[in-house]
């Protein structure tokens, strides 16, 4: 009933959703701001990449596929930069990384 491309894209989008859930779980469970940033940026970027691949599979034209990939690239760049800025601000405010005690 579903075509091959729909199944493939659903699989990719589902895997991306799993990564997003993992990132949110890390946000809720990790002990300090640095590890939470780690989980958020890495897992969310991979999740977004998988979702974008799933959308590229079923995109109607090459131009829209290129636009989707551009969105992913820009999001990766901006999330990496904001992760660095937040970590720098936290470090400057004196927040120490979590130590195993």
């Amino acid at each position: 009933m579903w075509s091959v491309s729909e199944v493939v894209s659903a699989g990719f989008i589902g895997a991306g959703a799993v990564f997003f859930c993992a990132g949110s779980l890390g946000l809720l469970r990790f002990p300090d701001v640095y590890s939470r940033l780690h989980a958020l940026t890495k897992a969310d970027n991979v999740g977004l990449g998988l979702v974008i691949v799933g959308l590229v599979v079923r995109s109607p034209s090459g131009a829209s596929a290129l636009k989707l990939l551009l969105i992913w690239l820009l999001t990766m760049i901006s999330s990496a930069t904001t992760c660095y800025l937040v970590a720098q601000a936290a470090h400057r405010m004196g927040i120490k990384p979590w130590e195993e005690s």
Partner: protein
Amino acid sequence: MTSSLAPFDVVLGVMLVALAWQLLRARDVFTGIVLFMVLGLLTSLAWVRLGAPDLALAEAAIGAGLTGALFLGALGRMEARDPGGFVARARGGASRAYHIFLLFPLAGFIVVLCRGVWLLPATAAGLREPVEAALHQAGVENRVTAVILNFRGYDTLLEIGVLFIAALGVFALYDTEAKRRPRVMPAVGWILTVFLHILAPVMVVTAGYFLWMGAHAPGGAFQAGAVLAAAGVVLRLAGARISFTIEKPLRRWAAGAGFLVFLLAGVSMMGAGRNFLEYELSSAKRLMLLIEGAATVSIAFALAALFAGCAALLGRPPSGGDAAGGQAS
């Protein structure tokens, strides 16, 4: 709205209400501002689900982005005058009886609203048919742009005028303080600068893309102006010496261009024997593009000036750190 996405819509609606509730219960202003930005993003999703992509673009750019930046800048300024006064205020104040007394009219109001929405016909076409019927006279294919710039152009002219007046208020209050205050470089590292070398040109191109696509796809002057203003805001945050005051004549023209061009376009139609703002069909598209271009510049300038006017304390040096940019920590 397709019925297969109904669970998504229900979840989105519940999240909107829950987020608004959390926002009102936020213990300090910073939490409230962050929740407000998230609320803006979710509202943008809601616009997409309601079939209004132009509104979704504007909501994402202005509601979630620029307004959040304005609130944070204002918070920084308020906290400089009253450190710690806006963080985790104790929930004192009105008594519980007062809250319960307020609950009844509020609940009644919500019931009336919900009943009104429930009784709306599910497939109301609204103004779609009259607009579709008159679209061939508009000169553009995008219905939203046709309504905004052609059929109801007078409203948009006045909106741009209102934005211009608000910017005038900022200019009136901003200049004197800027001269008195010593200018301190914001303490950011080189990564933000490198990021901006990539991002600022992309944002300018995106603004131009929205402006051009506004004729036949979701886009338009407000969305393009909001993206440009965001570019100006990020450049200011990174310490670029870009000024949004009206000392120089070029910036004065930039601030007033949108309203002026729109007004002149309308009046010039009167000179050709037509009514005010009644475009001629053959030149309508070019005229609207000209108006939209000038409006984009003005909207971007006004919004960026609103931010620059409240970003007074961005140069506050960190405790024990070097104030000049460039340290790698």
